[in-house]
């Protein structure tokens, strides 16, 4: 079902005016491709310093003196804004060349990491918002938070690595052919 959906979205985008516009912008606005990519990397840096740092804190690996709930309230808005910036800058390239991304398995891996990573970040955020100190109120909750944090960290690393490998997916094919 998903491959068929991807195919129709890719086909629809390829024919769309949005695709024409993205191609025009990337080709005619001086420096737009590296500028958009730089904002994308800057967004990654902000994700690292917000949701990733919270995960490291939950595992006791970073900023031990900072309070978990306070950190979540202070830093998670940065994550959401960074994700918005990265979605916008990323979409520019995806819309311009839908087939390059929708038929690229590494692009799929990136999203297989990204979607659960964002959902787990939402869980951490929502519970802490609803009840400050939620994750530290019992050993059971702290253990759950640590499990979520560990999985999230692996997923975020996966997002970053896969993101860079999208441009090199051919290497993987040659490797395993």
């Amino acid at each position, binding site marked *: 079902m998903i491959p068929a959906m991807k195919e129709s979205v890719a086909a629809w985008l390829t024919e769309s005016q949005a695709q024409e516009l993205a191609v025009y912008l990337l080709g005619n606005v001086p420096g737009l491709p590296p500028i958009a990519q730089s904002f994308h990397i800057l967004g990654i840096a902000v994700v690292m310093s917000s949701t990733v740092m919270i995960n490291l804190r939950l595992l006791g690996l970073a900023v031990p*003196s900072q309070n978990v709930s306070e950190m979540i309230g202070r830093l998670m808005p940065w994550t959401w804004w960074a994700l918005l910036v990265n979605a916008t800058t990323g979409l520019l390239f995806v819309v311009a060349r839908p087939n390059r991304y929708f038929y690229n398995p590494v692009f799929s891996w990136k999203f297989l990491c990204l979607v659960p990573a964002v959902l787990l970040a939402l869980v951490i955020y929502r519970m802490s918002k609803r009840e400050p100190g939620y994750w530290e109120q019992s050993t059971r909750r702290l253990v759950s938070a640590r499990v979520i944090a560990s999985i999230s960290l692996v997923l975020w690393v996966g997002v970053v690595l896969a993101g860079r490998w999208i441009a090199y997916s051919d290497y993987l094919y040659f490797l395993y052919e």
Partner: protein
Amino acid sequence: MNEESSVPFTAFWTWLETLPLSEHIGFTWWFPFLESLHVLGVGLVVGSILMVDLRLLGRTALSVPASRMRRELVHWTWPAFALAVVTGTGLFMTRAGTYIANPAFQFKLLCLLLAGMNMAWFQFRTLRSVGAWDTAAVPPPAARVAGLASLALWIGVIFAGRWVGHII
């Protein structure tokens, strides 16, 4: 393009490029592998520094003392920086002469140098008086200037770094 001739130490860059290790990186999956780790390292370096800079500017985390923010985050900055340097050197080796002649690469090195000098100045001069302003919401001008300069320089590193690949 014969850009290499315009930079000094041409022989050295050529030697570096023709090392078996450089050629191995350049012609195998090692290049994208190192590059992806480089992005991870850069993300952590700039992310951790960003948090300290914004605290120094008096913009966020006002309840956290500035010196503690710096001390706790630098534990992540240095290992991440080491990762970025090692992977970056691996990438650089593959086309050393071309990178050295690349204006974006030169600008990146300049930003890194200035960011390092700014950090050293802050740590050995400005931070000496931290006792007087550690818990202040807005640190004194010297600390704010250091934070702003650091922010600008690291954003410069990211832009220049991403631009390198668009010039070659």
